[in-house]
Structures are given as structure tokens and as C-alpha cells.
């Protein structure tokens, strides 16, 4: 009998793998001081299934000092670097003890760069085992049959190119992130004496740059006017809206002439044309298409979709979600998956239809991934009650999968051409002749079906009323989490595993303000400073170059040591250059930070304790905002002021002429006014409030008058 240690990535994965590998499907969980492992029997072997917690080891600098440059690192237990990671300590200790009398080590972490690295580091630093003799299980779903198959046919060697690529990415990210963040933070500290972490990194820099560029386009946008023609008619007692053949009229004069020529005139149906189109099913999901579809239908942020998909994967009901592939391999047992789905109440009738139609060749997409197929359901039943969020995402994945076997949808586009002299108007209809795959994809399809009214060639209409309406060109839209993620993918920045986190961190560090990714004053200060002194950090070239080098490691065209030494050389050169300009960098960041703090949080010195700073605070109970003193939390000062609940606030460099309190500006929509923090009590504001009220009244009356004109 031999003792085999199986290293998995997470507790839930360990449980499933142990369950699948134990001959009696009853592995024993052995708990030891804040950690546990699973004991199983398989044939004559004793299996010890242990788990990591994602990464158990992290990089740490080997030479002391919070300064730069720092180029040398070593892998240490995560709890030594991250104070919060206390859970990793008992796990590492347990693995260390258990590894002492093990005959064979098997890595069963996720089959991708991070998973391979987690397995390797656990093996090397917790088990103290020789990675050269360890073995590797490869799988894309956590179903019993796939796990057993992966164990019985495991590879005799670890995937070293993947491990090296992963290691190098961690090392270079550490080098750039740590050193550049220190450049910026120390520049601020040495200039103003404040310690405020100002961070940047290999992927964060270019991401910030894309957001700033878009922000500038929006802020510099000058809209242009154009006019549209709106024409109506009545046919069989039904009001019908007609579409003018030219979507945009460039001048007011032309628009008015068209209205003059058409209003009250008779037009006739010149012809009715129809055209049919066939639409194939959408390809299978990869992570990015799943994320964007989940955002569209449920409003889930990409990071949330990934987390939910991960939990569905750990429950073995979908395949591994971190995949770029849009293909389902021929080796996949589709019949078995359909059989499983057929047993679920929600999908049984759809599965029946798929099986009856007999087309079991799914539509495939273009993108592929060497390690994993496209995301698909496994057909296994969930072992637990799914949360509402999980249910939604699972339904989307199952329906997408079923739709792959559907026939093309056939649409009929109808267009009636309606003429008055040389003027042409349209009436459009869209009929779905055959739903095909749309029936399976159900609520997630866009149909836009619209009946064409019952009309024939030669029918005539009275055009009334015909109007023109002034419109304006639209600025480019700001990013949302999903469109930003897509851009990063298109630009090949970051990886499918890291992009969602980068998108989140831009916001959590205060560089953007809301889900629309509007750049904050801090974001601007950082962007402007980097643009001036470190433009290379904002350019996607640096990171694209690294992704290429990693790819070359995967293809065994280069190796980790060479890539790392080149990266260190480049970085050292950059850092020397920054050191010379530290004072200038510090000045710009400090000015930006001052503006940021001023505009976002602070409204000057507290008039009561003369020590604290007045800040905008949100009540955790009511969600309403008010002004409070920063000494409040220390129970030293209880000064508060009410605030208007709507609009952006920014302090003004002046005090109220009536009461002497700090003044601030409120911008709400198109309205902008100035008041003091004492506005509800201030003797000078009473008249002002009245005047404001009167102005408001006038404003609401005015548009009515204009309408009458």
C-alpha cells in the first residue's frame, strides 16, 4: 500500500475530489487545529487530499527597507506578508506534517497558470518535495467521472512552462507594483510629509490611461445639432408613426421646408418589400462573453460573475469558468450532459426537443484555449440549494448550451415605401418566421418583433401631423465594468483571471467615482503625473511585451531567468530616472491630492472644536448625508450640520458674509448655487432661500409660456 498526497486548490475542490476518488464515496474529513484534510481509500492506495487556499505563498523582498529600488524576492508563507491571511498558517503546518511520510505527490489544482503555480509552490515550500517527480491530474469539470479519469490517467510530470510563466508574472508584477508605488508614495511623503499610498502597476497604469482618455473625450465634447422628421397618419382607426427616409437633417431650414411640404399632404404606398435573414445560434460562452451577457441581463459586475461561476464549478454543475475557449471538444460526452439536464424540471422539455431534432453537433465559436473547453453545464445536479444569483447564472449557461443545438432563427424584414412627390417615408415590420435556437435561449434573446399594419400597395395616407425636432450628437459613453473589461481583453492586457480585479481596484482606490468610471480628481492627478514623468507606465506596450514573453515561456522559446533579468534591467533604468525627478513628481501629486480631499470629503476646519475637520458623512441608518467633525469618532466633538441631499458638493475658498461659516457650492443637474454650511440657520440665507424659491417658480412657469408660442 502506498500513501499518495493529492494537492487541491480550495477546500470545496478537495471535498469533491476526495468524494470522487474514494472507493466507497465516503472519504473521512480529519480536522486538525484550524485546518483539515480528507482521508480516502482507492484500490490499495491511501489518499490524503489536502487543500491550499488559493496562494499559500507570496513574494517578499529579501533586503529590508520601505524604499526603492528593491529587486530581490523570495517566496514566503502568505501570513508573513498579509496580516489578514492568518488562515494560511494552520494549513501550511498541516501539509508540512502530513508530507513527511508520503510516497507520491499529485497536483490536482486548476489547470491554468495560477493553478499550476499554486500546486508547485505548495509542493516545494510546504511539502518540501521534489517537483521533478510529482505527478499532475488534468480536468475541466469536477464531476466524479472526470476526476476519476484524470486520476487514472494522470501525467507523470508537472507543466513546468506554465509554472515558470506564472512565477515570472508574479515576480514582474511585484517588481513594478512595489517599486513604482514607492516612487509615488515617497514622492508625496518627502514633499508634504503625508503618508498616503499612491499606487500604480503594470496593468493598472494602461487601464487608468484608457479611462482618462475617454474622460477627456467626454469632457471636451461639443455637441452638434441635427433635426429629425416625425410624421404620423391614421389608418383603419389606428395611429401609425412613419419613418422619414433621411435619418438626420443637417440644417433647421431644410427640416422646416420638409415639414412645410409634407404636413397635411397625401402620400401613397408605393411598394412593400420583404427580405428574410437567417441567424445562427451564438457561440458557446467563454468567461468574457459570459461576463458581458450576465452584465447585460442581470447587471452583475464581471468580478461577481466570475465568483458565482467559480462556485457553480466547485459544485461540479458547470465546467471550469476561466477559459477563453468558445469551442466544445468532440470528446465531450454531450449525450450524457443532455441526459443529466433532461432530469431537471426546468429543462426537461427543451432537452426532449433537442434530442428529438437529432442534431447533436453544437455551434462552435472562433476562440480557443489550450487548457479548457468553453463553459458548459456538466449535467450533474446541484448538491445544495442554489442562491437566486447562482440560479440566474446557471440558467443563462444551460440555455446558452441548449441553444447551440437549435436551428437557425429565420426573420422576415418588411418595409413599405410611402411616397409624396419626391419625398420618401418608410413603415417597417419584423416577423420571426422560425424561432429555432431562440426558443431555448428564451428570455436572453432580443427579438424586436413588430407587426406591419394591414396595408397594400396603392393605399393612401393623410400625413398629419408632420413635425421636426432638434436633436444633438451624443458624446462617447463612459466605460461600464463590462465594456472596460472587454477593452482590456481586446488590447490583450492582463489575463482572464486578473482583469476583473484590476477593474475593481481602479475604483476602490478612489481613481474613479462610480460605476460609470468617471475619473476623480485623484485619478486625474495620478494620470497627469504619470503622463508627464512616467509615460511608459501608461502605455500598454510594457505589459503587452510581458504577455508576449510569458507566451514565449509557455512555448519554451525562452525561460524565466532571462525574462526576469531583462525586466529588472528596464525597471532599474526607469527608477533611476524617477529618483532625479522625485521633487517635481511629489509637488504635482500633492496638489492633486489636496484638490481631491478638498472636493470629495472635507469642508474646512470645525468651528466648534477648532481641531477637527468637517467632513461629509453618510448616516449608516438612513443613508442621508450630513456634515460632521472628524473628531466625532474619537468622541471629542459632536458638531454636525444638515446638507442638501442632492447634487455634488465642493468647498469654496470663502466664508459666509452673514454668519462667518464655510461656504460651499452645490451642482445638481444643470443647477449650481452657493451657500454656507450653516444654511438652515444662517440669518442671511432666509431671504436668499425665499428668492431661490421664487426663481424656481418662475422657471417652472416659463417653459409653459414657450410651449404656447
Amino acid at each position: 500500500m502506498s500513501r499518495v498526497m493529492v494537492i487541491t486548490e480550495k477546500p470545496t475542490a478537495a471535498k469533491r475530489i476526495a468524494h470522487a476518488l474514494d472507493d466507497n464515496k465516503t472519504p473521512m474529513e480529519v480536522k486538525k487545529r484550524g485546518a483539515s484534510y480528507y482521508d480516502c481509500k482507492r484500490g490499495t492506495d491511501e489518499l490524503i487530499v489536502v487543500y491550499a487556499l488559493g496562494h499559500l505563498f507570496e513574494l517578499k523582498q529579501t533586503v529590508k527597507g520601505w524604499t526603492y529600488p528593491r529587486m530581490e524576492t523570495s517566496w514566503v508563507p502568505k501570513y508573513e506578508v498579509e496580516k489578514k491571511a492568518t488562515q494560511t498558517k494552520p494549513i501550511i503546518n498541516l501539509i508540512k506534517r502530513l508530507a513527511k511520510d508520503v510516497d507520491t505527490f499529485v497536483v490536482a489544482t486548476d489547470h491554468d497558470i495560477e493553478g499550476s503555480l499554486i500546486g508547485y509552490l505548495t509542493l516545494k515550500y510546504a511539502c518540501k518535495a521534489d517537483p521533478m517527480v510529482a505527478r499532475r491530474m488534468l480536468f475541466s469539470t469536477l464531476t466524479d467521472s472526470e476526476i476519476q479519469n484524470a486520476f487514472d490517467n494522470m501525467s507523470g510530470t508537472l507543466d513546468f512552462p506554465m509554472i515558470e510563466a506564472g512565477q515570472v508574472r508574479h515576480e514582474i508584477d511585484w517588481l513594478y507594483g512595489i517599486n513604482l508605488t514607492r516612487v509615488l508614495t515617497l514622492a508625496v511623503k518627502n514633499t508634504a510629509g503625508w503618508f498616503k499610498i499612491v499606487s500604480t502597476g503594470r496593468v493598472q497604469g494602461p487601464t487608468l490611461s484608457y479611462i482618462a482618455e475617454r474622460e477627456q473625450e467626454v469632457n471636451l465634447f461639443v455637441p452638434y445639432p441635427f433635426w429629425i422628421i416625425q410624421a404620423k397618419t391614421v389608418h383603419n382607426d389606428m395611429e401609425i408613426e412613419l419613418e422619414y427616409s433621411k435619418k438626420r437633417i443637417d440644417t433647421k431650414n431644410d427640416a422646416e421646408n420638409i415639414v412645410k411640404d409634407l404636413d397635411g399632404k397625401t402620400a401613397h404606398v408605393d411598394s412593400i418589400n420583404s427580405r428574410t435573414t437567417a441567424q445562427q445560434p451564438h457561440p458557446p460562452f467563454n468567461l468574457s462573453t459570459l461576463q458581458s451577457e450576465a452584465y447585460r441581463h442581470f447587471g452583475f459586475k464581471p468580478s461577481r460573475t466570475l465568483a458565482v461561476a467559480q462556485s457553480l464549478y466547485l459544485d461540479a454543475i458547470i465546467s471550469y469558468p476561466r477559459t477563453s475557449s468558445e469551442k466544445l471538444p468532440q470528446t465531450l460526452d454531450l449525450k450524457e450532459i443532455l441526459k443529466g439536464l433532461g432530469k431537471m424540471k426546468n429543462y426537461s422539455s427543451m432537452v426532449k426537443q433537442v434530442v428529438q431534432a437529432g442534431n447533436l453537433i453544437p455551434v462552435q465559436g472562433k476562440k480557443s484555449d489550450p487548457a479548457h473547453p468553453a463553459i458548459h453545464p456538466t449535467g450533474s445536479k446541484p448538491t445544495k440549494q442554489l442562491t437566486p444569483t447562482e440560479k440566474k447564472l446557471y440558467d443563462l449557461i444551460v440555455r446558452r448550451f441548449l441553444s447551440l443545438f437549435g436551428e437557425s432563427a429565420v426573420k422576415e424584414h418588411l418595409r413599405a415605401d410611402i411616397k409624396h412627390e419626391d419625398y420618401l417615408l418608410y413603415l417597417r415590420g419584423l416577423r420571426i418566421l422560425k424561432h429555432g435556437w431562440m426558443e431555448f435561449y428564451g428570455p436572453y434573446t432580443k427579438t424586436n418583433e413588430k407587426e406591419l399594419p394591414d396595408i397594400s400597395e396603392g393605399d393612401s395616407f393623410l400625413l398629419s401631423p408632420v413635425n421636426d425636432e432638434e436633436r444633438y450628437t451624443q458624446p462617447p459613453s463612459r466605460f461600464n465594468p463590462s465594456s472596460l473589461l472587454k477593452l482590456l481583453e481586446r488590447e490583450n492586457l492582463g489575463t482572464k483571471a486578473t482583469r476583473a480585479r484590476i477593474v475593481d481596484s481602479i475604483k476602490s482606490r478612489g481613481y474613479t467615482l462610480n460605476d460609470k468610471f468617471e475619473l476623480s480628481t485623484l485619478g486625474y492627478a495620478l494620470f497627469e503625473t504619470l503622463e508627464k514623468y512616467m509615460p511608459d507606465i501608461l502605455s500598454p506596450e510594457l505589459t503587452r511585451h510581458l504577455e508576449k514573453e510569458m507566451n514565449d515561456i509557455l512555448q519554451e522559446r525562452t525561460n524565466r531567468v532571462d525574462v526576469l533579468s531583462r525586466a529588472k534591467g528596464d525597471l532599474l533604468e526607469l527608477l533611476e530616472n524617477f529618483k532625479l525627478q522625485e521633487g517635481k513628481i511629489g509637488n504635482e501629486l500633492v496638489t492633486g491630492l489636496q484638490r481631491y480631499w478638498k472636493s470629495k470629503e472635507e469642508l474646512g476646519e470645525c468651528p466648534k472644536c477648532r481641531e477637527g475637520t468637517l467632513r461629509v458623512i453618510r448616516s449608516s441608518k438612513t443613508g442621508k448625508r450630513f456634515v460632521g467633525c472628524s473628531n466625532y469618532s474619537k468622541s471629542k466633538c459632536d458638531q454636525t450640520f444638515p446638507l442638501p441631499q442632492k447634487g455634488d458638493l465642493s468647498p469654496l475658498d470663502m466664508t459666509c458674509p452673514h454668519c462667518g461659516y464655510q461656504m460651499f457650492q452645490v451642482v445638481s443637474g444643470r443647477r449650481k448655487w452657493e451657500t454656507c454650511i450653516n444654511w438652515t440657520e444662517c440669518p442671511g440665507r432666509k431671504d436668499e432661500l425665499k428668492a431661490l424659491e421664487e426663481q424656481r417658480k418662475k422657471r417652472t412657469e416659463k417653459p409653459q409660456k414657450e410651449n404656447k408660442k
Partner: protein
Amino acid sequence: MSFCTICGRVAWNKSDFCRYHKEALDGLQSSYELWRKASELSWDEYIEKLCQIDETGRWVLDVAEQIRSGDGLSTPT
């Protein structure tokens, strides 16, 4: 060193504005011709229009509001 009269950033090449507000002013001035052709607005009416419509970019709006308040920036020649 002089600063932008709108946002306090460092002013751009002896102008009253930072590079963003200067660029916004340039855009605003060069777009007037197209507006004039399209709807025969006077310069003042054009500025008023930009202040009113939602699509106007923030920096353009800042500049338009400053012009409307009459600080001496005049019609481009």
C-alpha cells in the same frame, strides 16, 4: 507660474486656462461655424445653447459659462 481661472491647474502657454480648458475653448470656438450654418444662431445664442443642453462636455460647459458671465472672451474672428 499662472493657473487656470476655472480649475486651478497650471495654465497652458500664457493662456488663462489649463490645457484641458484651453482645448475646450478651441473646440467651442471652432464648432460655432457649423452651428451658425445649421441654425443661424448668434454667438451669444450659441453659448447659451451650450450651457443648456445635456450633451455638452463638462470642460466645454465650464468655458461656456465663463463666457456667458461676460469675462471678456469674445466671438472668434
